[in-house]
Structure formats: structure tokens, C-alpha cells
């Protein structure tokens, strides 16, 4: 089933077209990777899907619901989770607390003023589960600001996952990571719930081709190609754009 659909999305800033008639969709269980040179408008596209930016025209459908004009929090409630290119975490809180907040959003009650948060064992238990999944359990009590960049990147995914989203947007999850950390992250992404739909931006071609079920190539805001990885790899126009790149 189609968890996310973007239809004819259009966005410009003055004379600068960042998104030109972009259409794509993400199925349940699919890992859909967006690639493209710098300035292709990848993050702008993700921001329009996430709600941090509003398109000029076109539609964003989350699980069939028209979410084009909805605020980020409303989209999250429809089952959308996302990570950011720059770590968007609660730096001064603990790793555990970061994930716990992600869980509370979906499974807790944020207007409960009386009951101690700690007594919500279901929320706490789920937070620990997510930490385990992302191999961050050992760091649970550490302040985010004190853990390594690679671990923060993993935490970024953990937090997004905490609310049990159905569709996950990952904005360059491996950026700034060492090869070892990248390898670990690929494994983690592979081990994520099977029914999750993932739309991710990625630059590292090895990561792209080891994970992708479907690739969309973005070039100056336009979709250059959108197909299975094997087809994209031999696509003439894509090769032109990525002259010299190892496809």
C-alpha cells in the first residue's frame, strides 16, 4: 500500500525553482532513496513532506490523507517521522529522555499534569526497546551533548522511530559518519520494522545501492529518473549528471 505520495510538487523562491513538478511515492516496506547533486532540492523536498516548508502547489498525501497544508505535528500524528540533516535533538537532556519524549508523543498523555512521568512504565519500556534496537542502551543516561557525533546520528533515528511512525523520512542519515559507523547504520536501517516505509536522502552511493528498493534522482529540483536501482544505474541521463561518479 502507498504510505506516502507526493504529486506535482512545486516550490520556488523568487526566480529560484527548488522543486519542479516532483511526483513520487513510497510503499509500505519500501526503502526509497533520493539522490542528486548538491542544490538539487532534496532537503527542500523533505521539508515540504515534513511540513517545515509549504509548497507553492501540488499535494502531499500521507496514508491517503491530504497533508499538504498541515503543520508538522499534524503530519506526525498521521504516522510520519523524520530525522534532520543537522541533528535536531535535545542536547541537554539524556539519551533516554530524548527517546522517551518521542514515545510520549504517541503513547503518552502530554496534558497529564498529575501523574509522575516515571510511573508510565509502558512509555519507559518502549523507550528502552527503541534504545536497544538502535544499540544505544549503554548510553541511556548520558547527556546527548557528551556522546559522539555518530551516536547522535543514531539517536536522531531512534527519536524519530520512538513514536512508531509508519513512514520515516531520513535526511542524510550517514553524513559525517566514519565507514564503520556507516556500516552499522546500514545494518540498523535494514533491521527496522519491515512494514515501515522509508524515504531517505543519501549521498554515499554504496549505502544507496545496498539499501534502496527504489531510487529517485533529483536534479535542479526536477525528477531526472525514478526507478529500480539497476535501471537507474544504467540510465544515460543519470550517468551524464553524475559524470565520474562510481555508479
Amino acid at each position: 500500500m502507498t504510505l506516502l505520495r507526493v504529486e506535482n510538487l512545486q516550490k520556488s523562491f523568487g526566480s529560484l525553482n527548488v522543486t519542479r513538478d516532483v511526483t513520487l511515492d513510497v510503499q509500505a516496506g519500501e526503502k526509497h532513496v533520493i539522490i542528486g547533486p548538491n542544490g538539487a532540492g532534496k532537503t527542500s523536498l523533505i521539508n515540504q513532506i515534513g511540513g517545515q516548508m509549504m509548497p507553492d502547489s501540488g499535494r502531499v498525501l500521507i496514508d491517503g490523507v491530504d497533508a499538504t497544508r498541515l503543520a508538522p505535528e499534524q503530519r506526525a500524528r498521521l504516522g510520519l517521522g523524520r530525522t534532520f540533516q543537522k541533528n535536531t535533538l535535545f542536547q541537554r537532556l539524556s539519551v533516554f529522555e530524548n527517546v522517551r519524549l518521542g514515545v510520549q508523543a504517541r503513547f503518552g498523555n502530554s496534558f497529564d499534569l498529575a501523574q509522575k512521568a516515571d510511573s508510565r512504565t509502558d512509555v519507559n519500556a518502549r523507550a528502552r526497546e527503541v534504545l536497544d534496537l538502535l544499540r544505544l542502551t549503554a548510553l541511556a543516561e548520558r547527556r546527548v551533548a557528551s556522546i559522539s557525533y555518530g551516536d547522535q546520528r543514531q539517536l536522531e533515528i531512534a527519536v524519530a522511530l520512538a513514536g512508531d511512525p509508519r513512514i520515516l523520512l531520513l535526511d542524510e542519515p550517514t553524513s559525517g559518519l566514519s565507514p564503520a559507523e556507516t556500516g552499522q547504520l546500514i545494518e540498523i536501517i535494514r533491521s527496522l520494522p519491515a512494514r515501515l516505509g522509508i524515504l531517505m536522502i543519501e549521498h554515499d552511493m554504496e549505502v544507496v545501492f545496498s539499501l534502496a528498493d527504489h531510487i529517485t534522482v533529483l536534479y535542479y529540483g526536477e525528477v531526472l529518473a525514478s526507478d529500480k536501482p539497476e535501471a537507474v544505474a544504467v540510465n544515460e541521463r543519470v550517468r551524464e549528471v553524475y559524470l565520474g561518479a562510481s555508479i
Partner: protein
Amino acid sequence: MSVPRVDPLPTRIPGRKPLVGEFAFFVIALAWPFLVGSYGTGLITETLIFAIAAMSLDLLMGYGGLVSFGHAAFFGVGAYALALSGVKLGLNPWAGILIAVVTSAVAALVIGYFCVRVSGVAFFMLTLAFGQLLYSGAVKWRGITGGSDGVGGFARPQLAGVSLDDPMYMYFACLLAFALSLWLLRRIIGSQFGHALVGLRENETRMRALGYSTDRLKLCAFVISGMFAGFSGALYAIYNSFISPDALSFAQSGMFLLMVVLGGVGSLVGPAIGAAVFLLMKQFVSSHTEHWLLIVGLVFICCVMFFRSGIYGFLKQWRERGARA
């Protein structure tokens, strides 16, 4: 304006284990009126009343990251609600306190509804504007509020058979009110709402991306904060048997802000300490020199420049350093 820098910051939200210091505080607090005369008792009574208002501002500012320059609005609304319910409607002060809390909650709901829609400098300006709006209302609406003459002449109530006219009983009543407020605010901060509020302060973008209704969270914090401020205002009106528009002034809002920063933003107990230090300093300084404003200004500047975590933060760091040595 975004989040004020608060160090040290708890990674766990406080509210779990009371400090030893707190027990000591309450022991002293209970013994106090027997140690000093009625003047000293009155001074501490006033301190307790303002401490409640300062703590309520800390909820908004320290835990929510929302810096309001109009907190006196709710303090004043509560005070006037109590005063007018007594003078104009003839209600007893207990009903008056209830009315004060409800009225300030409504005021906070209305004002907050508008304020949470903007952020940064606009939020700060808007809270200032609303504060001034209410202040000008209190001054100009002579028919109801008595204008700059204020409202007075209502007696203190009875509590459990004793009259609060006796400074000692008034003191204990306010001590009870303070303890209750502290306990409630602690619980709120330790609740899921409190955790969400801190998350909001730390990274609003992330909170929204997770699905939190940040506007509603802010509004809720605003209302709760306003309610406690109104409660404090009502107590203030009872204590003085008088209320004037000064309680709503820009200066009063500034004083609350001062108490919070002086005591330690984001620590709840800190602002209570800040209120105490502020008022005691005022008393002490005023009796020795005319230059109270200069002293308080310099102390405040010192705080902002060098002791950003306030008295409480400083004491905590000192204790931690001592523990390590």
C-alpha cells in the same frame, strides 16, 4: 527570543527526592515567627507570597523557555479579583481566592492564546503590551478599579477559627500556601506535561516533528503559570488589605523577572530564594542607604554577566565542587 541559557540543567526533571536543605528550611520556617517579632514575620510572609509568583514565572520561563515581561498582569488580576469580590460583591476572601484563581486563569487563556502564536522578540513584546494594556485598564477604569487610588478596606478572613489579622497566623497560612504551591508545581514539572514543556524549551522543531501540539503546550503552561500568579496576587491583596495598579505595572513584571534570574532560572526553588533575597535585600539596603535601585541593578547585572544560573545554581555548583574535593 529562544531558550535562556540555564546551567546547571537537570537531565532528570526534579521532583523526585527532596533535598535535605528543604527539611531544614521548613524547620526554620516553622520556628521563625517565634524567633522574630511581628515585623520580621510580616517580611517573610510577603516573601512567601512573592515566591509563589516567582515560581510560577519560572514554570513558564525556566521550564517552558517563554520569557514573559507581563507576568504582573496575572498577579494583579488575581489581586483585583479578590479585592473587588470582597468590596463590591461582599464575598468572603475564600471565595475571593477561588475567583482570583479562575479569573487569572481566564486572563491567561485569552492573553496566552495570542501570545503563543508568536515567538522570540514578538512574544516578549506582546506579553509586555498585554501587561500594559491591563495596567492602563486598571488606571483608567476608575469606576470599577478605583483608578490609581486602588481598592482597599477589606478585612483578612478567618481560617479554621483563627483570625488572619494576627501576623503569626497570616504567616502560617502563607507558609502553607507556599508549600502547597511548591508541591503542586513540582508535581506538574515531574509529570508528562512537565517533561513535554522542557522538550519544548530545548528544541521546538523536534517537538513538532514528533507530533506535539506545541501551541497548546505553551498555552497550558501560560494558564497554569497565570493561575499561580493570580493566587499569589490574591494573597498579596489579603496581606495588604489594599491593591493598586502598581501591582500590574511594567516595574512589577520586571521585579518578578529579576527574582527568577537572581534565584536561578529553571530550578523552581531558586526563584523562591530569589524572591526572598530580593525582598530582604530591599529591606536591608533601604534602611542603610537610599540607593536601593543602584544596588539591585548592579546585583542583577552581576547575575546576568557572571552568575547566569543564579543563587541556586551557584550553591549547587559549590556543593558539587565540595563533594568532589
